[in-house]
C-alpha cells in the first residue's frame, strides 16, 4: 500500500462519523464529491453487527428524489448495477459498502451536486436494530484505485 493511500484512509478514519444502535455500529460513512452537473452520487459505509442475532439492512432514507441500496456485478467485463432490497449483516460480522461493489445510490441531484466538506444526514433501516441515524461526510475521491 502506498503512503498516499494510507493517508487517505487515515483521513477517512478521522472524519468518519460513528453511529451506534443497540446491535449495529456504523463507521466511515462517506460519499464522494461529484461534478456540478452530476445526476447521481455514491455513498459508502461499514456496518458491524455487534449483537448475537443476524440482522438485515432493508433500506435507507435521505433527502434526495431517490435513494437506494445498490450493488454492481461483473460478468465477462460487463458492469451491471442493480437495486438491492436487503443486505444481510450476520451476527458478529462486518459488511462494507465500498467502491466497486455495494453502495448507497443518491439519485436526482438536479443541480445540487455533492460538495466536498458538506454532509448528508441519512437513516438506515435495519430489520432488527430498527432505524439508525447516520451522517455521510462528502469527501474528495482519493486517487487509489480500489478494486
Amino acid at each position, binding site marked *: 500500500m502506498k503512503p498516499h493511500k494510507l493517508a487517505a484512509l487515515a483521513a477517512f478514519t478521522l472524519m468518519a462519523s460513528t453511529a451506534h444502535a443497540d446491535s449495529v455500529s456504523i463507521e466511515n460513512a462517506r460519499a464522494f464529491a461529484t*461534478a456540478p452537473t452530476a445526476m447521481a452520487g455514491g455513498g459508502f459505509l461499514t456496518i458491524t453487527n455487534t449483537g448475537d442475532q443476524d440482522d438485515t439492512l432493508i433500506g435507507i432514507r435521505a433527502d434526495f428524489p431517490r435513494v437506494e441500496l445498490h450493488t454492481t456485478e461483473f460478468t465477462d467485463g460487463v458492469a451491471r448495477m442493480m437495486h438491492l432490497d436487503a443486505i444481510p449483516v450476520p451476527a458478529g460480522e462486518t459488511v462494507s459498502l465500498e467502491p466497486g461493489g455495494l453502495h448507497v445510490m443518491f439519485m436526482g441531484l438536479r443541480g445540487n451536486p455533492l460538495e466536498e466538506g458538506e454532509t448528508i444526514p441519512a437513516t438506515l433501516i435495519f430489520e432488527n436494530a430498527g432505524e439508525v441515524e447516520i451522517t455521510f461526510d462528502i469527501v474528495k475521491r482519493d486517487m487509489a484505485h480500489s478494486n
Partner: protein
Amino acid sequence: MKAVIFGTTTLVAAAAIGLYVWQSTSGTPNPCGTTAIAGSTIGGPFELVSETGETVTDADVITKPTLVYFGYTFCPDVCPLDSMRNAQAAYMLEDQGLDIGTLFISVDPQRDTPEVVRDFTDNFHEDMIGLTGSPEQVRAASRAYKTYYQAHEDDPEFYLVDHSTQTYLMFPETGLATFFRRDTSPEEIAATTACFMGQLT
C-alpha cells in the same frame, strides 16, 4: 502468444460471449503484453459530439496514443473508478515525459449532454475528453469498438445502464494496440502503454 478475438457475427453475439481469449498456435509474443490482438477490427471511424457541442470524428480526438473507455455519468462508482484509473495512468506517463490522451465515450446519450460529460471528465484529468452524441452515433461508436451497453427501461429518470468496462489503447495511425480489463492497475497500464509507445511511435 495469447490472441484475443472478438465475436464476429453480430453485436449481440459479441456482447453475449464477451471477450474471448485463447492461445493461438503461432506468432511471436509481443514484449509489451499478453493481449496482442489477432484478426480484430476494433476501432475505426466514428462521429460523436464533443464537450463543446461540436461534431467530431475519431481523427479529431485520437491524435496521440489514447485510452478509450465507454461508460455513463449516472454511474457513481464503477465509471469514476475506471476513469480515475485511466487518468492516473496518464499522469504517471506524463511524469516520464510521455503524452497520452484519455477519452470517455458516453453510452447514455439521453442523459449525458456535452456539458455533463465535460464536467464528469474534468473531475479526473484536465485533458480527458468526454464525448456523447445521438443514440445512433453512440450506437455506431460502440459497435465499432465492440462494446456492449443496455439501458434498463424501468424508469424514465433514474434508469441504470449495463456496459462493458474494458479500456482500449488506441494509436492514431495503427489503431488498436491492446485493451485493459478493469482490474488492471494504473501502474500496469502506464507500463504497457509506455512499451507500445516505444514500439509503435
